[in-house]
């Protein structure tokens, strides 16, 4: 029994290592390119370890992008607002679609699914007009207010998780005369922490990397986000400064990377019990 466990462990490690290397390749290439002089950046096949590493590319990239720290602050603000709005509203709505039985629930849920099937390009123009009517063009509101209205993706995700929690939990609480909101807040939410963290993480990343939204709705450089600022390093005619672009991209990736690395530990702790307290 012991030997096969060790075998098992090493086979897993090898598989993980090989696949992991393949998956990490884009990131390695990005970092490697960020440390090369411009002429070497696009060479094929690439040199993986640039010697000597051009650390200067990083401050240069920051300078080339413009008000880097302002963009970073904007990205952070938007991300925080979006995460807050999304987690709160999606959990609430998902509860309604999963732990409650009411007429029209499943039909309405299918409508929710259908909203994810509308191709974005054709929706852009009416949406833009709508925001203009509200006077939101020129502000950052179009980029975070909709988060408080529960996006379909996150509602769907949380619904699936809420549905996998045993029925007995809520039944017992209802028999005890507990109100629905209390059940939601005090029983279901704590149990669904891994899922809520997942939603928070994904929303953070989506907002952090989103450049289409800021591109369309922002008209002042002071409001630009990091993702949009990266565009400044892509030139149409004079040739993109790849070393700067990759250095800037690495910097933009780092916060999300750190956040992921730190929070994924809580997934480790999330083994649900059937704890009927």
């Amino acid at each position, binding site marked *: 029994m012991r030997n096969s466990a060790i075998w098992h462990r090493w086979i897993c490690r090898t598989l993980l290592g090989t696949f992991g290397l393949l998956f990490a390749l884009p990131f390695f290439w990005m970092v490697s390119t960020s440390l090369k002089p411009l002429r070497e950046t696009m060479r094929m096949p690439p040199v993986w370890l640039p010697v000597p590493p051009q650390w200067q590319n990083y401050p240069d990239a920051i300078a080339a992008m413009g008000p880097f720290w302002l963009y970073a602050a904007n990205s952070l603000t938007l991300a925080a607002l979006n995460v807050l709005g999304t987690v709160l509203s999606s959990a609430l709505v998902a509860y309604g679609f999963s732990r409650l039985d009411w007429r029209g629930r499943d039909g309405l849920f299918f409508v929710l699914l259908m909203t994810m*099937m509308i*191709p974005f390009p054709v929706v852009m123009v009416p949406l833009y007009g709508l925001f203009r009517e509200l006077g939101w063009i020129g502000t950052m509101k179009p980029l975070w207010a909709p988060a408080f209205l*529960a996006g379909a993706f996150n509602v769907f995700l949380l619904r699936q998780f809420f549905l996998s929690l045993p029925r007995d939990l809520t039944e017992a609480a209802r028999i005890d005369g507990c109100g629905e909101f209390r059940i939601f807040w005090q029983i279901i939410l704590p149990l669904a922490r891994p899922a809520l963290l997942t939603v928070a993480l994904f929303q953070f*990343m989506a907002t952090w990397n989103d450049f289409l939204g800021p591109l369309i709705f922002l008209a002042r450089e002071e409001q630009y986000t990091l993702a949009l600022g990266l565009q400044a390093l892509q030139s149409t005619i004079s040739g993109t400064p790849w070393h700067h672009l990759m250095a800037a991209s690495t910097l933009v990736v780092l916060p999300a990377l750190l956040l992921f690395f730190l929070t994924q530990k809580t997934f480790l702790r999330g083994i649900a019990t059937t704890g009927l307290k």
Partner: protein
Amino acid sequence: MTFGERRKTVQGLLFVAPWVLGFLVLNLYPFCASVWFSLCDYSVLSQPVYLGTRNFHDLLQDPVFWKALRNTLLFATVSIPLSTALSIGLAVLLNQPVGAQGFFRTLFFLPCLVPAISLAILWQWMLNGQMGLVNVALRPWFDAINGLLGSSLQPPDWLNDPSWALWGLVLTGLWGTGQAMIIYLAGLQEIPAELYEAASLDGTTAWQRFFHVTLPMLSPVIFFNVLMGLIGALQTFAVPYILTGGGDGPGRSLLFLATYIYQNAFDFWNMGYASALALVLFCMITILTFAAVRFGEKKVHYEGR
């Protein structure tokens, strides 16, 4: 409705109220506007001119539409099963007690964190016909086969060959399974350890446990990921758009429906035609998703029901 039912409906609606508001304002209104546009000739900056169903007639006779449709469906059919298998496999692997799990999980998730522009450049390099990493890795195999059979096969020039470009894209799509993998991992964590203990006490093998405990308990999450994968694959736009520089790829082999819609809306000033295309895409996704939901609702196992 009885009084009890009505009360429950009101309660349900109260909980989902935020979404309903968002739906009416951010989804329904633009959608209805878009349906109206699909019946018009509309260039965004002029008033729409009613045309009846002409856009739809043109659509059915447009060979580029059919090509884009074919590309989109082909891509979805191949990439969804592949990425599902890969992400579940990886999640199971990552759930094993092998140590340094945090490190490995981060590695797999990295491609999802890299900005689209960097990814696209990387794919261009990796899929290069002569010097790309993929072909450099494949060439020894091809040489071996050539040696055995006396043939002169070459690994494909992924990005320039109309017959292979789409498969190159499928390959690059597999790198994005990190997100689905994390969701599977969270789902795996939720499976109570007692179930596995009970099963192994009964003397089952690891494979049996996988098929009889893991998969059923994971089924709500599988359902979610496959559905999201379907909706996402049918709306693929960003990566091919960046890879081809906003164009169609060799022989139009990388033209997806979403790309064609975007081109018509913003490059060709044919927002009316684009809306018609979007409506067709929307209906297609709805039908396929409906079929998937019907199928899934029977097979998926919910503890909470």
